[in-house]
């Protein structure tokens, strides 16, 4: 029997690491050890404890702010359009490396729920989109669903900006129902997808009419700012709205939503429509299922459905789609730590493949690679983020913030889900793109990114006895893997360090380094070990 009963005992190292791997892009051993002493409840409170992002505003390569928003109307840009071509993702990614918190994983999940791609994305619109995700990732999915329907980038992506009473366009409304909220069920008749019908798609389309925008617009105009979020959104042209009542199908209990004729009424109409959709438990269940795949595991067995999903869906719905109560319940549950059945730890733990984003961010942070300062060494941050993290994502099946299809990234949207991140091609890139050059060191705009393996072992305080091969290996396994490898795999990593020589030989190598300060020999051994550890199937798993 699976159980959402909370786990009340202290996490311990392995569970803390499990929780952190699933929740945060940034990880360090010290943080894991701190969390090990917490109960799940304390840990999750801490993970939810954020209000702001580490670096509040994107900057251009000269370290200057260049984007005016409601919250930050001033810029110190003296280099004209220098920021214009930058991908907002570089700033977003860079932030993920600087804070242990749930916020970024949640923002990314929200992005998965309501993906947009490149269309309609100049920097400012991209920034608004990202801000919107960040805003509602602290709150309610339902609020996000309402606001995203008016987001300028989304309006371009799915053509809702063209949707008027006289020229209906149901692209957005279709995806809204099919992919973003209640999702398609079984097709039980022509045009009937159990959860909604074609009639509902059309009615939804009518609800969405009238919101439009150009790519460029006057962002300072208060009429373009959302009252609550203060983020610019599409403009409502009342005359373009389809003002009639919208009658929905039996899937929605034949609900009639009154058509608005004024701006306020139209906004209420939108709100009512979204309420109607979100009142269906199926909507909540579909979000919960996607939360589950994102945080827990890929298999939604009948047991999981009956005992976990439904209960969490009710919690989500009952809390008006506030994320925190539902997610907290999941992350503190015995189920999450696989303590709710007879065998502990054979499910959930180590059951997901790291997306390229986790692979990269967790790598740079677990090895505590010194990073440049976003304010004073901005160019290095931007190009590092772009060329190392985003590039890896792009080439291995997750083009960050630009999913190939409206369905989202393959690793999240279709079976076998996270396994989609691993192909012969992507695996090779995951192996080759990150660690080897980091062990050698490279410079970007004057800042050297370098994992000094010897200093890391000597000074990080994570290695209690570096001269003892067996202890060193174990501590590396603890640092990087789900489980300590055994048998041939253990030997493989052991030999990556020792290279056929004895542990005594390693003892002398380390000892010699400590005595003489010449790290070249020790570096050879440690680099070889770290490279093997990272370029392994074991390291691809979280």
């Amino acid at each position, binding site marked *: 029997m699976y159980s959402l009963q909370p786990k009340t005992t202290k996490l311990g190292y392995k569970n803390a690491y499990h929780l952190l791997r699933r929740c945060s892009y940034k990880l360090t051993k010290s943080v894991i050890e701190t969390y090990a002493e917490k109960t799940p409840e304390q840990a999750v409170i801490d993970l939810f404890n954020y209000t702001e992002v580490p670096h509040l505003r994107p900057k251009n390569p000269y370290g200057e702010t260049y984007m005016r928003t409601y919250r930050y109307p001033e810029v110190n840009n003296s280099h004209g359009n220098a920021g214009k071509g930058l991908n907002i993702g570089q700033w977003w990614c860079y932030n993920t490396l600087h804070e242990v918190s749930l916020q970024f994983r949640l923002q990314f999940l929200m992005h998965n729920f309501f993906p947009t791609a490149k269309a309609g994305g100049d920097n400012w619109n991209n920034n608004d989109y990202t801000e919107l995700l960040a805003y509602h990732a602290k709150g309610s999915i339902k609020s996000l669903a309402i606001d995203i329907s008016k987001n300028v980038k989304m309006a371009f992506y799915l053509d809702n900006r063209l949707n008027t009473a006289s020229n209906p366009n149901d692209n957005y409304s279709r995806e809204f129902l099919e992919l973003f909220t209640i999702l398609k069920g079984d097709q039980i008749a022509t045009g009937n997808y159990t959860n909604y019908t074609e009639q509902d798609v059309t009615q939804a389309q009518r609800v969405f009419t009238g919101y439009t925008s150009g790519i460029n617009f006057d962002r300072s105009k208060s009429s373009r700012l959302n009252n609550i979020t203060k983020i610019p959104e599409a403009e409502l042209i009342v005359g373009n709205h389809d003002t009639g009542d919208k009658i929905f199908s039996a899937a929605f209990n034949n609900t009639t939503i009154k058509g608005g004729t004024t701006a306020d009424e139209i906004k209420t109409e939108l709100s009512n429509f979204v309420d109607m959709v979100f009142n269906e438990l199926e909507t909540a269940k579909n979000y919960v299922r996607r939360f589950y795949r994102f945080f827990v595991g890929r298999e939604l067995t009948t047991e999981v459905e009956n005992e976990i999903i439904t209960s969490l869906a009710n919690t989500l719905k009952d809390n008006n789609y506030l994320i925190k109560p539902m997610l907290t319940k999941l992350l503190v549950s015995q189920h999450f730590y696989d303590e709710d059945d007879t065998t502990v730890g*054979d*499910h959930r733990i*180590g059951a997901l493949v790291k997306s390229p984003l986790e692979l990269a961010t967790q790598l740079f942070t677990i090895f505590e690679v010194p990073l440049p300062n976003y304010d004073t060494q901005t160019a290095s941050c931007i190009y590092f983020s772009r060329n190392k993290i985003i590039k890896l994502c792009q080439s291995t099946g997750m083009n960050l913030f630009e999913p190939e299809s409206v369905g989202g990234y393959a690793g999240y949207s279709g079976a076998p889900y996270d396994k989609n991140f691993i*192909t012969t091609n992507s*695996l090779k890139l995951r192996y080759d793109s990150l660690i080897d050059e980091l062990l050698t060191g490279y410079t970007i705009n004057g800042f050297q990114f370098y994992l000094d393996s010897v200093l890391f072992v000597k000074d990080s305080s994570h290695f209690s006895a570096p001269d003892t091969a067996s202890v060193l290996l174990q501590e590396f396994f603890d640092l990087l893997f789900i489980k300590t490898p055994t048998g041939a795999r253990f030997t*493989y990593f052991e*030999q990556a360090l020792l290279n056929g*020589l*004895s542990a*005594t030989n390693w003892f002398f190598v380390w000892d010699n380094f400590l005595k003489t300060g010449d790290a070249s020999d020790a570096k050879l051994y440690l680099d070889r070990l770290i490279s093997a550890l990272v370029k392994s199937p074991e390291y691809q798993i979280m």
Partner: protein
Amino acid sequence: MNRKEFLRLTTAAAVGTPFLLNGMTAQVMNNFQDMPMVANNVNDRVLVIVRLAGANDGLNTVIPISQYSNYVALRPNIHIKNTGSNKYIELDSTLQDNQLSGLHPALTGFKNLYDGGKMAVVNGVGYPSPNFSHFRSQNTMFAGRDGTNNNFLPSGMFGRYLAALYPGLANNPTHSNSDPLAIQFGTTNPCLFYGHDHEVGIEYNGTSLQDDFFTKLTTSSTTSKSEYEELLEFITSTEGAMDLYYNRIQDVFTAGKNSTKTYPNTSLAKQLKTVARMIEGGSKTKIFQVTLGGFDTHAGQIQSGSSHIGGHANLTATMSDAIKAFQEDIEALGINDKVLTVTFSEFGRRVRENGNLGTDHGTLSPFFVFGTSVEAGVYGTHPVFTNTTNYQYSESERKYDYRQLFATLMQDWLGANDTLIQEAELSTFATQTNKIPLIKTEDNAYPDNLMGANGCLVIRTTAVALTTDDGWTYYGETGTTDYLFAIEQTPVASGANTNSFTATVTVEKLCDVAPNHVHKIENLITGEGVFALGMYWNIILDTGSTNGWVNLRWFKDTLLETSLNTVATDFKTKAGSASISPILDLQTNSAINLPSQLDNNGLGINTSFTPLLNKESGSYSSKEYIQYNQVITIANTGGVRFIKVTNINQNTPFVDNSKYVKGNIRYNSVTNKIEGFDGTAWRTFH
């Protein structure tokens, strides 16, 4: 690669023949696709290298019995006993004193193989400038260097050999050549043996597949796995499919099988079992390397008080039992003809023990070679030490440079011809003198020794001037009237010599015993053969010099000549060869010294020769002679007679003359002559 390129078996026409013509090798041209594949085809042969990583303590592996008391004095705690139930195994009581050996008691497998005639022990292997760093020494040896310069070693001996043998094929499998060139198990670190400065991917590392293979070597039961383990399996198998050779390796492994012979349950044994299975399954990979690590026995080499057990004992037992099981398996599978196994250690260990029941880094150690094609025995005497030898053997105790061993294996076992040996940068070590005769003669792929059998003595007859008659000076052994040679010193004709001089002529026979008195190299497959009269002359001027040409007469040994004709003709019939030459006469421009010149390099590649074209026969004092007219130079020259049987003619593919190398011999059907290529042009021999 196709069969054509494979067939580099040299008939060594002039290789090692007394006519030593610029290192002439009759290269087989590429028109032998239809040749029947003989089971013992050299081209299918495999070399298995067992790497004893960490440096094996050779002195406790093979104990020099005749130095036992010094051995004990230097290894008071760790010496192997010579009495009692845990004493060394006496290898072979018939060996001479300085080769008598005691094997580590764990080496029962080795003893068994030796008694079965399948093991060779090569003593005292090392190299000129030993290095005591594992990495440096390994890399020096992998690269085929002497240790004086350890900088920039981009390529290895076998890398260079394989790249020259299969140019462009590394990491580039084709439909007909889908096997990796070399496969390494037992460590994921690439081995410089297979490094190359521009061909990448000569070595395929199969270590990541070991888990999978080892499980499949025996039947395994399916157990339920955790989600993590399943996911790990999924990613691991994706990893496996990432490389070009993966499918082929899997196919070969699946198609192969082992015999019912049991292997021990050690990684080394399983690696070898995998190798046997892959060879049986049709792998054409030429070199397999397996690894046993842990030999760096600075401490715990033995268990205190019991020198027969401990770290080194475990390793030697593992090594011995695994190799023995492997040999049994390949014999049961019927693939033993193709396989030779050799051990490798980056150095030996110190003669004197250290203070931790172990040994520190050393220099010389014995290497072992196994297989049914091995001429079993002990090669080289044990390096000598006295009871004051503190650390290392002295430099002069080295018996073999490791490159001699590997050049032998590359050439005599794998059949690498001179060009490939040159590419491997082992030419110096692949000479007759330097190669180690540990391959059985009948299996030797590169028989460059014209001697048919051991034990023949050189019969050197020094002929002095005995008499003069009609302008001819007759030479023979003092006190006889048996003329061997004659020189017309001052012929009356334009251009002839007018100086007076005295000379000594030596006539040498390498063997007087039929059938070895006809020196031959035969290749039944290619139909190429070289047959030399087993008798040669040399002229030395004692006083004076010549200023023009002279005439020479060489008295025949009719029995030898008849033999020569018969043997050559018989071969031609048997092999179905296209052409047979008349007896060809050549003069070399420096003295012939037997037997050392009966090797690849002959007199060296810069030596020129002169075909003696102006000939006639005659007899004097009831003895037949062959006369050479107008011989311009005679001081320090020698002479040979030979018959060439060949399938190669001027139309044999290789139409571009530039592909010939100095030393090629062919039959020219247009001119009806046998000719040799001197590097620039074809020159007729008769």
